[in-house]
């Protein structure tokens, strides 16, 4: 079998010393995505406010429970969505906000229905 000097030359790449390349890459890496922040304080205040407006002052305890439940639910949503290729934090926060507002509005509407 004929020996091809081209195969030797092409198949033998010179190993490149790191020479600071890894450090350069590491310094340029963006920060990892962080889990979604907990609900914004204004949103937490908004949820019981909506329910209380809909039902009156008597429902304030129920409204607080609803707000606490939503905060727990949305707080758990972030870590579940964020790691490894998940949506950006801004997306998670927007989703959380939309979900909380929708749930609060639905809860207020249900509780306001005449029985």
């Amino acid at each position: 079998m004929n020996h091809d000097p081209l195969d030797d030359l092409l198949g033998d790449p010179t190993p490149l010393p790191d020479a600071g390349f890894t450090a350069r890459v590491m310094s340029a890496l963006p920060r990892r995505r962080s889990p979604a922040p907990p609900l914004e304080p204004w949103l937490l205040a908004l949820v019981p406010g909506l329910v209380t407006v809909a039902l009156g002052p008597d429902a304030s305890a129920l409204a607080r429970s609803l707000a606490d439940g939503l905060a727990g639910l949305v707080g758990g949503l972030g870590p579940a969505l964020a790691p490894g290729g998940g949506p950006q934090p801004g997306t998670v926060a927007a989703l959380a906000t939309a979900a909380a507002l929708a749930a609060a509005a639905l809860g207020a509407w249900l509780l306001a229905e005449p029985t």
Partner: protein
Amino acid sequence: MPPSDTELVARVLAEDDRRAFAELVHRHQSAVRGLLRRLTAGDAALADDLAQQVFITAWKKLGSWRGGARLSTWLYRIAWNAWASQARRAPPVEPPPPEPVRGTDDAVLDRRDLTRALAQLRPEERAALAVTYGQDLTHEEAAEVLGCPVGTLKTNVLRGKERLRLLLLPAPEATA
């Protein structure tokens, strides 16, 4: 025994372990930069800039790496895409008619000759040779990296080698 690529990737994903990622970069930097130097026809600065982009992309998309394929193959694929994207932004000029890059009196081929000769190949021939040789890939893996059929890859390898032979090796009558 050093941790495998798979173990290091798992650490990065589970613990956000930057040291594990640095080990991956250090482990694969030579192959990725070497491939890009061949793709860029020896432009070391451009190759290193692209290699940096490759590892940053890998960091962002590490969760999408499927453990079934070797990490190196996945990195080469990102490198190829980075180079192809760069080539679209600044298309390489059509190579001039081939000129011998070395005299026939020197019996030893060296890598500078090879780099200059590779620069005279068509981009698709250069890419085929770059991923097929020195990267420890099968023809199937090399074709997957370039996103082309295996037959196309083999054709480009053969054509590229023929052109390199004309550029690098002394004509038979000159050696007689």
